[in-house]
């Protein structure tokens, strides 16, 4: 689904924040990306959701070499990926419903085509009664669930989440993780970036990618319990 080969990345003329990264994400699998703050997790996610270009190496997404793709070909690729940003990145002037509907709108769908799906999804994440609320009036947990709903509303093949429990209390964090597990069961491939050890221990990750100082320190195909003792 996603394959990195000797990928390096730097911002502008600065030092490389990612070095010699090679790994692959398997379809339908639950992946965890771990490592301490500043290890490069967010930069790695940015490369996957095509917000940045690598300074070297090869990135293949859904069977296509992204480096060889024209800029105009990237939007359809982005639509196959859902992203839950660390800081949610909701648009404050839009309602919850409008925020969640955004990916369907940019696909050119009309309200009649997406409205029922959006309402159903918001009910599923427990926000069926907050459709008309604006993000500034929502709690951290509610914002996080809106961000998740927006990321999955277009039924992406791969869902990326950057520190999804970083801004919410442990109870909400647990609920969010159960939501991810459910999405994975429904067929969405997952890559969750987190340095929260409790989350790592509770998730049924099939693969764990561990970043350290811009390098991929270890990749593990072990189940979570075995990985913990590795």
């Amino acid at each position: 689904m996603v394959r990195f080969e000797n990928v390096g990345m730097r911002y502008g003329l600065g030092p490389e924040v990612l070095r010699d990264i090679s790994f692959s994400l398997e379809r339908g699998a639950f992946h965890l990306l771990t490592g301490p703050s500043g290890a490069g997790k967010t930069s790695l996610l940015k490369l996957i959701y095509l917000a940045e270009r690598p300074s070297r190496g090869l990135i293949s997404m859904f069977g296509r070499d992204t480096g060889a793709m024209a800029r105009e070909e990237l939007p359809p690729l982005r639509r196959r990926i859902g992203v839950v940003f660390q800081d949610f990145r909701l648009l404050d002037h839009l309602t919850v419903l409008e925020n969640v509907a955004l990916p369907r709108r940019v696909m050119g769908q009309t309200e009649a085509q997406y409205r029922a799906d959006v309402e159903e999804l918001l009910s599923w994440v427990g926000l069926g009664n907050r459709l008309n609320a604006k993000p500034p009036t929502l709690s951290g947990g509610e914002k996080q669930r809106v961000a998740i709903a927006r990321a999955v509303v277009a039924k992406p093949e791969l869902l990326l989440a950057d520190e999804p429990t970083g801004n919410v209390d442990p109870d909400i964090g647990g609920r969010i993780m159960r939501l991810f597990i459910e999405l994975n069961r429904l067929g969405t491939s997952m890559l969750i970036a987190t340095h929260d050890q409790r989350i790592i221990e509770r998730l049924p990750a099939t693969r764990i990618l561990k970043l350290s100082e811009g390098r991929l320190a270890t990749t593990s195909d072990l189940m979570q319990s075995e990985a913990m003792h590795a």
Partner: protein
Amino acid sequence: MSAINTTSGLMPPDSASGATLHTIVAVMSFLACLTLGAVLTLSRLASEWTEGLSGSVTVQLLPSPQIGGEDQLSDALRITRAWPGIFAARALSREEAMGLLEPWLGEGNVLADLPVPQLIEVTLTPGRQVDLRGLSKSLTGNVPGAHLDDHQRWNRELASFAASSEGVGWAVLLLITLATLAIVIFATQAGLQAHREIVEVVHMIGARDVFIAGEFQRHFMWLGLRGGFMGLGLAILTLVAISLMWNSRDAPVGAQYLPQFISAPQHYIWLLLVPAITGLIAMFTARMTVLRVLGRMP
């Protein structure tokens, strides 16, 4: 479940940059409308003056020892009225002739002492070519002291003055348009910076550049149109107020001779173009700016 609109624009309707752009476009539109009003007025005056002068000629009869005054007048009227293309010829009374001189010489005894020539006002048939050179020769040859003034010298000077004034007006209008363009580009870039979050999020969820540009251009087109109509409204109020002031009884002496701003209905249609153009300028500059910025994103 209550109906909720899910098709609001992506841009916040009342952002700070929008308010600034709104005000600036209103001011620029106001200036553009006033300038356009002045240019249209000058254009109308120029054509009125030149049409008025080219539609008539004057025959001057200077006293001559070879012919008596009455014979001189009747011969000149006879030749003129018989000439092809002449619609009417009328001798001006001495009072009328002196009335023409009053604005320059004032009232009083001075005029009574002056040897004011006999004048014949000649109106040409509209749309017909008249051989004025032939008429002039015929008058000079047959009526001693007669001289035909076809107003060509005045006509040329007025046409030249009107053309240069119009040119200055159009140049000012062009400068205002360029300034508006620059301001809209600046405000669009500021707006883009202020709403960079929106652009990035929508870009990252897979929106094509034309979709984002479409949202921006629609937002800025409405800002441009609204600002343009505000400026137009203020300009029309100003022009109407000036016209009313010049025509009022309290107006200073001579104000009634000043030109009427925007007297023709079609001029208002021209003015309506100003907000339409500000809207289009805002729309296209927003589109170009957004596409340029997006082009720098991966």
